[in-house]
């Protein structure tokens, strides 16, 4: 059993909407082991990004609030830390890369200055040393002309280059956990593959744990060792990547996998999951997926199932009545 880096227990995040609170993340629990890449998949609005923001405790600016649960990073509960302590963790122990690399870099500041800043916040070193680290990192992420890039402004770089710079910046202090929030969504496909390869390489070389948030199952299959499937703020299925793709149990996961177009198959219409993610303020009563689920029974509409182990499997968890017959109502 390898070392657990991050353990999220019963996390619940709520957003204030006018007078009432809506729950964006409901009772989410998972853990990440050292050096693995775990995928977090789901539709837009299912709470993937809110989960990552909660882990980083970056919800401060929004109306969001973590109301329950624990986020244990190497045994320490991040929710107990002061903002100042949290600042020393952000960027040095846990880093994050964001969706849109082009707007993730501050436009009027040269790359050089931004990277040096990222290093010097956490490491006690001179400007020259920090610049050296920045240059090494840029070299490591495969930027061809390091000197020129350092002196550039963000708008002078392409999207792929910006994301490389972002990765270099995130990795500058050798964090143990990297949260990648849809790192390739804004990039075109050829660059996507390069960025994914780069992340894999970084994970191999540094033993970094990566939480990869994406809605691209292809990327998950290629990158991850384990997958968490989220729906309406809940984890509905959790399994090893092989198990999940060859033996999906939750109807939602099955639907997601069915939606991936396959080369060679003779389908005129791509399958889709009917309906959309429910509005957070008007959640259905029972299983949150029941209204869109073709297998839903009365039982599904009445009560919400718990996340339980699939019969006879070791690491496959599911939140569905259909597959966990022994669950009592």
């Amino acid at each position, binding site marked *: 059993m390898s070392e657990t880096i991050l353990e999220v227990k019963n996390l619940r995040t709520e957003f204030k909407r006018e007078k009432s609170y809506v729950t964006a993340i409901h009772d989410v629990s998972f853990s990440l082991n050292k050096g693995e890449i775990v995928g977090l998949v789901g539709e837009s609005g299912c709470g993937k990004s809110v989960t990552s923001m909660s882990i*980083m405790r*970056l919800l401060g*600016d929004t109306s969001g609030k973590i109301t329950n649960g624990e986020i244990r990073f190497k045994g320490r509960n991040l929710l107990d830390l002061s903002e*100042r302590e949290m*600042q*020393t*963790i*952000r*960027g*040095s122990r846990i*880093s*994050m890369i*964001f*969706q*849109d690399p082009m*707007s*993730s*870099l*501050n*436009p*009027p*500041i040269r790359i050089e200055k931004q990277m040096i*800043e*990222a290093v010097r*916040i*956490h490491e006690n070193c001179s400007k020259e040393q920090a610049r050296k680290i920045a240059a090494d990192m840029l070299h490591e992420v495969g930027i*061809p*002309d390091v000197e*020129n*890039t350092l*002196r*550039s*402004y963000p708008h*002078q*770089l*392409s999207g*792929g*280059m910006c994301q490389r710079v*972002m990765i270099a*910046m*995130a990795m500058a202090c050798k964090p143990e956990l990297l949260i990648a929030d849809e790192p390739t969504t804004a990039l075109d496909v050829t660059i996507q593959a390069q960025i994914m390869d780069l992340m894999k390489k970084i994970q191999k070389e540094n033993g970094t744990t990566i939480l990869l948030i994406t809605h691209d199952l292809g990327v998950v299959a290629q990158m991850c060792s384990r997958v968490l499937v989220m729906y309406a703020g809940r984890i509905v299925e959790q399994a090893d990547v092989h198990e999940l793709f060859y033996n999906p149990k939750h109807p939602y996961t099955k639907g997601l996998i069915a939606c991936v177009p396959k080369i060679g198959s003779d389908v005129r219409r791509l399958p889709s999951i009917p309906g959309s993610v429910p509005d957070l303020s008007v959640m259905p009563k029972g299983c949150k997926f029941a209204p869109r689920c073709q297998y839903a029974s009365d039982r599904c509409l009445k009560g919400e199932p718990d996340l339980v182990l699939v019969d006879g499997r070791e690491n496959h968890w599911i939140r569905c009545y259909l597959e966990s017959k022994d669950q009592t109502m």
Partner: protein
Amino acid sequence: MAEESVVRQSAEELPKPKSPYKEFARKFLKRKAAVVSLIFIIVLALVAIFGPMVIRYNPNAADYTALLQGPSPKHIWGTDEFGRDVFARLIAGTRLSLSVALGSVVVGTAIGIILGLLAGFYGGIVDSIVMRGSDILFAFPDILLAIAIVAILGPGVINVVIAVAVFTVPSFARIIRSATLEVKEAPYVEVARSIGCTNSRILWKHIFPGTVQSMIVNFTMRIGTAILASSSLSFLGFGANVTEPDWGTMLSQGRNYLNTAPHMVLCPGLLIFLTVLAFNLLGDGLRDTLDPKIK
């Protein structure tokens, strides 16, 4: 040959970073009025710095043999009622007028920036206090407010600087606040937070640079307004000491001799007019240059 260059392009080779300053200069030079204004302002600044060392006459030396003389080869812009050389006084006054205007705008801007950043970034009670305070100041006509302040503090150059600075603050506070509100939502601010930046670092290093552009134009225009305001205060007798060469004071003294020696009013009046116009035109030009929507 051609094929080779195509291949090299595709290998993600960077184009040489174009200097943003060169780009800016290229766009700015297209605006003729602004360029002329800038040259005028530069000349004015040089006059303010070096002028008093070069002029032939002591601006305060009275010459009772040449009172209220019109322009002549000896005194190119004539003399005033004490026989002092108007040209020399104007040049000496340039330093005073410009430094009063610049000083007051710099002080006002600095305070306005701090208040605007804090109001926009922290919101809530800080925002309410700063913005309601600005609203109150906005409710007064600028010059009236300045007169009131000088009336309380008493006349004098420093007090004029304070008075003009006070009415400069709210416009900057507003501009910077709205820019801050916009910039603080930007993804790069979130990134800054995710690499562990403290609030004050985010505010000064990441948000502030993004707001500078929005205030450059206002800064330039405000200098024009400040020159006008400080001259008005001097004209009304609230400003510099009457013996000191100040454009507004000169205008005020010349008023009594409007019929006999119109040059005494014409010269400082024209200078004030041209200077304010130059700053306004420069501000317009800068706005057009800095606005990415205008080509």
